[in-house]
């Protein structure tokens, strides 16, 4: 029983780490640009398929290094052409546009790569379990968690100490003042979008190594990421981080006792949070309205 519980908690943490990567990217874009990026799951899929396409040539490590920035470049192009004209308009429009974009990405990858799942080869030494007792902790899973940890740490360092990060944080609070101080807000939004998409691409590569690739895999991760943001509190990146881990573990633990509810439990958590703490766990006053 303890082993089973441990197994599911580990699973939950790993799934939660994915939610965190996805949700942090979504949250960055939402906070600065007021855009709900429905196509975020689509960018995850793009990242995964780029890794699948280039890994025969550059290997797993090359793919891990190259696929996220390539995804970010695609994200930059999308932002420049499709999303930039919508800033300042009713958020409804960017929501609808990215919603349609998600359709196109899902169907496009199915058209190019086929509907069957595609495996991405991971290095053999990572695929082995670390011990016989704890068979479920493979090297790859630990590696994934480590990568997510490093990525999140780097993101927070970027936001804390670099000029770009300071501007992103300032823009989240008051974009108008930031613009009045002579900062190129368009560029800021583009870079911020690219950082968010980079994270989606990274989770795509990691997910490809663990689960294999399917055109629909992004959609399944989107809703939990939304909930991670709502639970953690809109406008707070640390909140998103904790929210993601929390719902990952919660659904993992529920899977032990009541498997049918393992997906529903995160929605229940959201309802409870909204009832007791309408701003989310770490949300700031006024961010939600």
């Amino acid at each position, binding site marked *: 029983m303890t082993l089973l519980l441990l197994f599911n908690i580990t699973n939950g943490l790993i799934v939660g780490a994915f939610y965190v990567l996805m949700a942090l990217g979504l949250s960055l874009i939402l906070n600065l640009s007021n855009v709900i990026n429905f196509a975020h799951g689509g960018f995850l899929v793009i990242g995964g398929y780029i890794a699948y396409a280039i890994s025969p040539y550059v290997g797993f490590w090359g793919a891990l290094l190259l696929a996220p920035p390539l995804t970010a470049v695609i994200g930059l192009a999308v932002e420049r052409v499709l999303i930039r*004209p919508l800033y300042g308009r009713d958020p409804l429009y960017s929501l*609808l*546009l990215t919603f*349609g974009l998600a*359709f196109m990405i899902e169907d496009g990858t199915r058209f190019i790569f086929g509907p069957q799942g595609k495996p991405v080869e991971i290095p053999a030494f990572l695929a082995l379990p670390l011990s016989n007792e704890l068979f479920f902790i493979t090297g790859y899973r630990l590696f994934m968690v480590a990568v997510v940890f490093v990525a999140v740490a780097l993101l927070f360092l970027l936001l804390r100490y670099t000029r770009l990060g300071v501007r992103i944080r300032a823009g989240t609070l008051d974009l108008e003042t930031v613009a009045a101080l002579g900062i190129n807000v368009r560029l800021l939004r583009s870079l911020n979008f690219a950082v968010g998409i980079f994270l989606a691409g990274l989770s795509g590569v990691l997910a490809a190594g663990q689960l294999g690739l399917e055109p629909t895999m992004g959609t399944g991760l989107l809703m939990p990421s939304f909930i991670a*943001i709502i639970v953690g509190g809109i406008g707070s990146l640390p909140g998103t981080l904790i929210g993601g881990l929390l719902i990952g573990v919660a659904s993992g633990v529920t899977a032990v006792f009541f498997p049918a509810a393992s997906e529903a439990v995160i*929605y229940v958590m*959201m309802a409870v949070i909204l009832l007791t703490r309408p701003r989310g766990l770490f949300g700031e006053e006024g961010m939600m309205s």
Partner: protein
Amino acid sequence: MNADNSRKLIVLAAIWIVLLLAPYWMAPLGGYTALATRVLVLGLAAMSLNFLLGFTGVLSFGHAAWFGLGAYGAGLTLKYLALSTPLAILGGMLLGGLCGALLGTLIVRRRGVYFAMVTIAFGQVFYYVAFQWSSLTGGDDGLRGFARQPLDFGVFKLDILTNADTFYYFVLFCFALAVGAMGFILRSPFGRTMIAIRENERRSRFLGIPVERHIWIAFTLSCFFMGFAGALYALVNNFADPRGLHYSQSGDFVMMAVMGGMRSFWGPLLGAAVFVVLQDYLSSITVNWMSFVGLLFVLVVLFFPRGLLGFLQRSKA
């Protein structure tokens, strides 16, 4: 002003004539009556959403949940409670509306994107319930094993089960009731405050309008209309589908409203007609219809954000 009024009356008359004669002109154009019925029901759903979206300015992206609940409500009523079409519609409307009213209390304080996000997420709750609770809802396969019942008026019976045209007129009658109610509410003082909230929420608040309560009422009314439309949809198909509650269905409804024109009362009906016919056509000619529907979303947002009616009105002015 007078010319304007008579022009409105002419347009209104034209709309109703087109709708009343649909079974007669659909067939020669290559359509079929059932397609017209579907357009009517989905159009009603889009108009119900637009009641909130276009006239109160509140962006709900989870409205498919109330639509789907309406469908399940009608289906479950027919299957387990009573073999009566009007009761089924009532059951669907109550299920969708009451669930919406309850959740509305949780979310009315949110605005803009955050409202959208919370409504999407909560909408998915009902999707999962319909999906997982197989013993009641049939799970992934949807709810089957019920059929709409002939209407029994004592002196005569209306066979809406097998006669497609009769059923169309029955749906049109229900549509007229709902649309009439919507129009009546929008013309009432309450409807005016809805528009005031859309135009300037802060000023409305200063004028003493209880904004949250009014948004909640508008949301709840919209959910009841949505449940009503959903119940009709279950009767159209004799089937309730969990995918009818999914957020992608909500996206379709929002798209219909935007494509037709959010700021006009009849816009969403036009949007629904174009959307349904286009989707029907695309899925018959290509397996990649999803891409084209996605492309449609992108193009409408970039080039026709005011929708077809908004575009027409603007180019006339």
